[in-house]
């Protein structure tokens, strides 16, 4: 058993366990949070290097051989996602130091964050469908508590919708897993990949594929299953919405890409055409929702949905270039989305509100901070030197190559509308002067909050934003390197023989 593959799960688990022992010592929990996420990042980079050098890694927990034991497997796609999980975990853990209030901290905020990261890493690394269900539940339960922690009215109302729809999707997932076991007699993904290609009743396989599409569609927030997302993502503390927006929907997209490249490729003409339609509608509804909103985080929540459409579009086109585009889009979008939510938290602190109408004057008072907003915002819209441009370029090229002109047209229009919604935030929060009447009264308290919490707290807010913005620029400038990675990941996804061989090789060892 290779410890390398389970470290990204063990490190957050043990950090959470140790933090829980120090339940009353908030400062210990804060440091444990930092240490745990740093360790997770180090372990994930190690795993990534191993996968990049030696190819797909697999291990069997408890040394039960492949179809019987629980398999952990990391191809390049999973490895990239785990590295990003570690990175976002660390950024948000640092950001939380200065932004999460004392009451939430003393009710276990940091251990919960670790358990969330453990669930996300587990979902990325598992090679077994039922195990995937378990990791989804680990992730969901901790996200439920993080969402509701604090017990404000908006949080509780949002949490009810979030919990209901996600539990509904879990019930569908469980039913689909049960039926799939009845059909194929195995739940190991590599084993399923072989058995499902040999199943004669392709209609049944397609029916199951639709059940998986629904369940992962809810988690990924695709049209028309996304309604839990804009109802809940703007309610918790900013650090929590940042990690949710960065990682949780991407786990859904990851699961979609995994099952629709490895398992359900029997009737591509039907399933992937349907996914293409869904992708287009997701992009459009997401961006139209974003344009219509007037609150910082609500705009960003709808942008999360719109981006999911782009990632799913690459899966639907199902060519090497398109899948590489999807992987690259996910890679850079996780950084950009997390960063935008972190920026919205600072803007909230500076203005005392998140309503765009009541914000203003941020460019005049903090021009450097305004620049920090512009980098991820323009990347999201797809402005050339930044990372989002290359992701969209690859997807558009793939669309043209597959002669799906409609989806290309939609993607380009949606990018333009994305720019519009980002411009709206820029105009309202940064460019226009501070509105005089309403928030003048609140302004002194906001400023006092900044100075009273000290330079240390402000630093913990700004440093993650600066690093993530720098990363966005770097991914844009070194797009060739990252795109090569994404291309290799896409090749591994499209040709599952190496994946299957790695899992079966783990069996003989």
């Amino acid at each position, binding site marked *: 058993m290779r410890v390398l593959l389970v470290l990204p799960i063990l490190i957050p688990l043990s950090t959470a366990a140790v933090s829980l022992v120090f339940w009353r010592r908030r400062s210990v929990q804060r440091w444990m949070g930092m240490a745990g996420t740093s360790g997770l990042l180090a372990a994930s980079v190690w795993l990534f290097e191993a996968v990049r050098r030696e190819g797909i890694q697999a291990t069997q927990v408890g040394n039960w051989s492949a179809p019987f034991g629980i398999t952990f497997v990391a191809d390049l796609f999973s490895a990239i996602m785990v590295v990003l999980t570690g990175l976002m975990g660390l950024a948000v853990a640092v950001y939380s130091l200065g932004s999460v209030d004392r009451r939430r901290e003393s009710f276990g905020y940091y251990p919960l964050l670790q358990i969330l990261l453990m669930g996300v890493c587990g979902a990325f690394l598992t090679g077994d469908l*039922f195990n995937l*269900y*378990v990791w989804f*539940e680990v992730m*969901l*339960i901790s996200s*439920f*508590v993080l969402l*509701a922690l604090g*017990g*404000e*009215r*908006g949080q*509780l*109302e*949002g*949490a*009810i*919708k979030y*919990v*209901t729809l996600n*539990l*509904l999707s*879990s*019930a*569908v997932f*469980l*039913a689909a*897993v*049960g*039926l799939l*076991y*009845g*059909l194929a007699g195995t739940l190991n993904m590599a084993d399923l990949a072989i058995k499902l290609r040999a199943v004669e009743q392709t209609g049944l396989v397609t029916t199951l594929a639709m059940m998986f599409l629904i369940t992962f569609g809810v988690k990924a927030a695709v049209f028309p299953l996304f309604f839990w997302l*804009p*109802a*809940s993502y*703007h*309610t918790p503390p900013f650090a929590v919405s940042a990690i949710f927006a960065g990682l949780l929907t991407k786990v859904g997209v990851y699961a979609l890409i995994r099952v629709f490249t490895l398992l359900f490729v029997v009737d591509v003409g039907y399933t992937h055409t349907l996914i293409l339609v869904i992708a287009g509608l997701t992009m459009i509804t997401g961006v139209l*929702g974003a344009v*219509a*909103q007037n609150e910082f985080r*609500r705009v960003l929540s709808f942008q999360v949905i719109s981006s999911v459409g782009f990632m799913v579009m690459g899966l639907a086109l199902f060519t090497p270039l398109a899948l590489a585009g999807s992987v690259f889009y996910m890679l850079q979008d996780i950084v950009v989305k997390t960063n935008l939510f972190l920026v919205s938290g600072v803007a909230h602190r500076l203005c005392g509100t998140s309503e765009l109408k009541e914000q203003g004057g941020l460019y005049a008072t903090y021009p450097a901070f305004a620049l920090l907003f512009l980098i991820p915002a323009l990347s999201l819209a797809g402005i050339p030197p930044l990372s989002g441009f290359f992701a969209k370029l690859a997807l558009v090229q793939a669309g043209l190559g597959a002669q799906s002109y409609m989806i290309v047209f939609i993607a380009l229009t949606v990018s333009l509308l994305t720019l519009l919604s980002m411009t709206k935030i820029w105009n309202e929060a940064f460019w226009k002067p501070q509105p005089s009447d309403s928030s003048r009264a609140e302004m002194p308290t906001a400023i006092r909050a900044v100075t009273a919490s000290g330079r240390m707290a402000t630093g913990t807010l700004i440093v993650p934003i600066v690093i993530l913005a720098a990363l966005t620029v770097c991914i844009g400038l070194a797009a060739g390197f990252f795109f090569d990675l994404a291309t290799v990941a896409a090749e591994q996804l499209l040709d599952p023989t190496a994946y299957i061989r790695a899992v079966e090789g783990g069996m003989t060892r």
Partner: protein
Amino acid sequence: MNVVLAVVIGGLYATGLYMMMRRSIVKLIIGLALLSHAANLLIFTAGGLTRARPPLIPEGANVPPAPFADPLPQALILTAIVISFGVLAFALVLIHRAYGTVGTDDLDEMKATDT
């Protein structure tokens, strides 16, 4: 036996979904509980119902003789029951807190976060 279970599962799904579409948050939770029961029974049925054939390996053999009850679905169900129990406990506390904070159990009046 299969038919009976199919009818039971169908009934559970129908009842669960009906309860979820009511306006009361308590009924919402009951509906969710019924849905997870339905899913568990579905795994049990889809895994194959073999009665009175325990998966015991006779001496000298490596596998049990051909028609035997598959223990794996039951292991899956057990895991799923534990998870749904935990989630249900959380959901109950959540609706209790929501009722205390919002002051109503009517989902139609919980629109503060809607767009």
